[in-house]
């Protein structure tokens, strides 16, 4: 616990900024009349952009991680980088929702989005069990509401409810695990817990038990098998941009807290949790991929694909090495840009054709070559094909696995990617070679969406090629931060 208040404030300037932004949104909502156009999307987008820039220049962590706010938060590269990810995801989501009829004029939507983002940044920096729990709830509650935001749509409401029930249930288990940890160690500060766990006084069985309980909560957040059952329904029912946000930022937050907690609390039983996580990884990949094969609805397919993608990221975590965590982070970065773009396309096509079936994508290449191309790139990146960031992500996690003597995990991973390639190819084929059902009527894409999609694509390509080295440096910083205690 260091630093005087002003410097600590600086460190959490982005969070403060987000709170201010929420206030701005609510005020604007109050002030402007019912029928006036309300450019919330743009306001929040630019607001987040400013926060992003501020966060890069003002709130950089020092060379050593430091604990602030009484040990609640830890300012280090990991938190910093993940924060950048969350803010970017939120900003992109804002752009995409600008042309969503049910969402764009609703101030509370953006407020909730911001609060959730805030929660995520706290999740990534949290260094105390209580803080972690608070942050998770701060993240999840708004998300439950956002999922069910379209009250008129039965599916949306259902998805919100499902999400809520599942989330609360798993949170409870996790909280139970937290209480056990507190009971065992007498403290809620992560790194003190870690010291206590490593001291050898606590039986391994107990540690493992708490680990499993805690994993339930985290597993839910990252939609890993067997905590994935909510994902397909929620993704399908929620408003599409929210599904995109969910599948990326929320998952990233889950991973951040997973990596931090496991490396912080359980370093002494690393072999144990790496096995556990690898099992989860394999299960997620296999179930995610094979169930995706049967899907006809693209949002459900992307949901199962996300489950499988979580599996790949878990390979990185399972390796437990600095390269492993770094690989998982890079993968998250790639995945974030890719999935937001993919869901954006789904949103636009869904709006235009009124259907989320894969068959609606037939002939998309003729109706909107740009959209089809973006989707193509997104799918290829997900499949792990160069020159896109997804390829780098995959190679990195597999390298990490090999390095950690887990060749079997890498082999299972690559075999799974073949299965995944199949269904991605089917979509590509549908877009490019089948004739479209409604003739070749062009699809209009709003400027905001074009901006969002372009940003994503540029990111995917750059991080797949030239910025590979730079990106890896960043993620390595993050991973080292996770691993240091």
């Amino acid at each position, binding site marked *: 616990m260091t630093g005087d208040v002003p410097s600590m404030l600086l460190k959490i300037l982005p969070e403060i900024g987000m709170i201010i932004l929420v206030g701005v949104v609510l005020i604007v909502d109050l002030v402007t009349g019912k029928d006036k156009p309300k450019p919330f999307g743009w306001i929040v987008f630019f607001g987040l952009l400013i926060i992003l820039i501020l966060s890069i220049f003002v709130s950089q962590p020092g060379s050593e991680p430091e604990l602030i706010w009484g040990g609640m938060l830890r300012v280090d590269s990991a938190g910093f980088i993940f924060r950048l990810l969350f803010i970017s995801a939120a900003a992109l989501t804002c752009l995409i929702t600008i042309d969503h009829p049910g969402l764009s004029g609703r101030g509370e939507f953006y407020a909730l989005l911001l609060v959730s983002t805030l929660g995520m940044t706290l999740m990534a920096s949290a260094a105390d069990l209580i803080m972690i729990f608070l942050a998770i709830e701060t993240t999840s509650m708004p998300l439950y509401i956002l999922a069910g935001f379209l009250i008129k749509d039965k599916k949306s409401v259902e998805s919100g409810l499902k999400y809520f029930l599942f989330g609360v249930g798993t949170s409870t288990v996790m909280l139970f695990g937290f209480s056990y940890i507190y009971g065992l160690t007498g403290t809620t500060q992560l790194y003190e817990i870690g010291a206590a766990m490593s001291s050898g006084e606590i039986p391994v069985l107990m540690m493992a038990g708490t680990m499993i309980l805690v994993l339930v909560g985290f597993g839910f957040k990252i939609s890993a098998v067997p905590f994935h059952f909510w994902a397909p329904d929620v993704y399908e029912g929620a408003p599409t941009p929210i599904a995109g946000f969910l599948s990326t930022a929320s998952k990233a937050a889950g991973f951040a807290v997973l990596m931090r907690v496991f490396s912080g609390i359980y370093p002494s039983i690393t072999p144990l949790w790496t096995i556990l996580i690898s099992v989860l990884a394999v299960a997620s990949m296999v179930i995610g991929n094979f169930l995706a094969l049967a899907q006809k609805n693209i949002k459900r397919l992307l949901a199962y694909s996300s489950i499988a993608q979580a599996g790949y990221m878990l390979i990185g975590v399972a390796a437990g090495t600095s390269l492993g965590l770094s690989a998982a982070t890079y993968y998250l970065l790639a995945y974030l840009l890719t999935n937001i773009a993919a869901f954006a396309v789904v949103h636009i096509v869904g709006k235009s054709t009124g259907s989320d079936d894969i068959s609606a994508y037939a002939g998309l290449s003729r109706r909107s070559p740009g959209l089809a191309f973006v989707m193509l790139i997104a799918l290829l990146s997900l499949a*792990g094909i160069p020159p896109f960031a997804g390829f780098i992500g995959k190679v990195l996690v597999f390298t990490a696995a090999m390095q950690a003597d887990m060749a079997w995990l890498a082999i299972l991973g690559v075999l799974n*990617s*073949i299965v995944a*390639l199949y269904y991605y*190819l089917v979509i590509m*084929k549908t877009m*490019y070679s089948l004739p479209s059902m409604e003739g070749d009527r062009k699809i209009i894409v709003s400027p905001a969406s074009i901006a969002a999609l372009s940003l994503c694509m540029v990111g995917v390509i750059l991080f797949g090629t030239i910025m590979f*080295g730079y990106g*890896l440096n960043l993620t390595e910083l993050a991973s080292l931060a996770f691993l240091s205690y």
Partner: protein
Amino acid sequence: MIFPILSVIIFTPIAAGIIILLVKAENQSLIKRIALTAVIINLVLSAFVYFRYDVAAAGYQYIEKIPWVTSLGISYHVGVDGISVPMVLLAGIVVFCGVLVSWNVDDRPREFFAFLMFLAASVYGVFCSLDLFLLFFFFELAVFPKYLMIVMWGSPKTRDYGGMKLTLYLFLGSVIALVGALAIYVGSGMNSFDMLELEKAGFSLEFQRIWFPFVFFGFAILSGIFPFHSWAPDGHVAAPTAISMLLAGVEMKVGAFSALRVGIMLLPEGAKVWAPLILVLATINVVYGAFIAMIQKDFKYVIGFSSVSHMGLVLIGFATLNNEGLLGAGMQMFSHGIMTALFFAIVGMVYDRTHTRDIARLGGLNRVMPWAAIGFIVGGLVSMGMPGFSGFVAEFPIFMGAWQTMPMAAVIAAIGIVVTSAYILLVVRKVFFGDLPEEFGGPPKENIQPEGSPSDADMMEKPKRNLPISDINVMDKVAVGLLVLTMIALGWFPSLMAPIVQSGVDRILVILGGI
């Protein structure tokens, strides 16, 4: 600063592809001209690199190295040696001919030529890569152009199946090889993906024995090694002409080449352990491919299986691990690449005019397409290993190598050559000589029965009466002429290529013998 010629070769198609994508879709002639310019530049540069390769200096030349990701030891490291520089030239020639032959594509030419350019870039990249990661990068880059080009422009009935089968199979091979490559990276302890450094890594025999199959067979799947070859006939036949040319002519060589570079050159002891098995499988390729080719009813399938058969010879050459075998394999990669590109080009030309690939329905085409006939005949002679053409100068040393390691293989493979001669002569005779069927402008016969069962539906469309079949146009003639001349030139002047390949082989022999 030395002119980074290899990078220009690799990135010209990428740039061209991007530019093409930005052009308006209706401006077909501009698109085609951009593509043509790019491939001409590439052809000229490839030839330049090839003919200026310094045989005496041996080793890698035209090297460029820029660090990319230092923490993992990845760099953008390119260069060519005696084995890869003929491959670069091959790619230059085949891609050039592919563009010429596709000149009349009018269905979404923008995407067609852009994807073709990306595919070309990937091929050049693999041949020039001296960094293991970079090699994979370019290797995988080819996946999406291949798939999309088959499903978008391939033969309507089979393209979905053929394209998917090809892509998944090849992806399988490449990810298995990826695991092996990562094992090499991790196992070397050098924290470097640089292949020149990895050659010196000194892996244990156990390590090599386990991981060699991953990299070799993973890559060799792309070269059609038995029993993982079945993607080739279906995929090649389903693909549009230019892609078949590229796939069989160059891509299969990418697979064999990578197997050589990553498998044999990095894990030589492992190669020695597995060589007998590879030899056996490759021999099966040769014979099995030839026999299956003989019974095909579809013109294009004959060529597809013939490719599988001839790649078997390349793999035999590799597996001998001796001087003559490797020399022959290097030459055969080039010779077969040109030959099969020629075959597919002509099959495409025939199909464009007759709209059928059913051998039973074709005939007497030499009367209306004499240039195509001559081209095909030359190709056929090359595939039979007829002296005076490049096939002979490539196959001869392969057999010499085989005699030294496994004489039975040489004898059995020779049977494959006889069978090849038989089916080539029969196909040539039926399709190009004999009587010109009525539907293609020939004299009327009594009682023409429409042939073909429903399962042959893909090969046929409704016959059009008295279709005026024209001979191939100027672009096609240039392509056919270039390919034919290359094979004749190499056949009579093996010294145009043998010394270069030999210098590459010398180095491989050092690697094989040294450790």
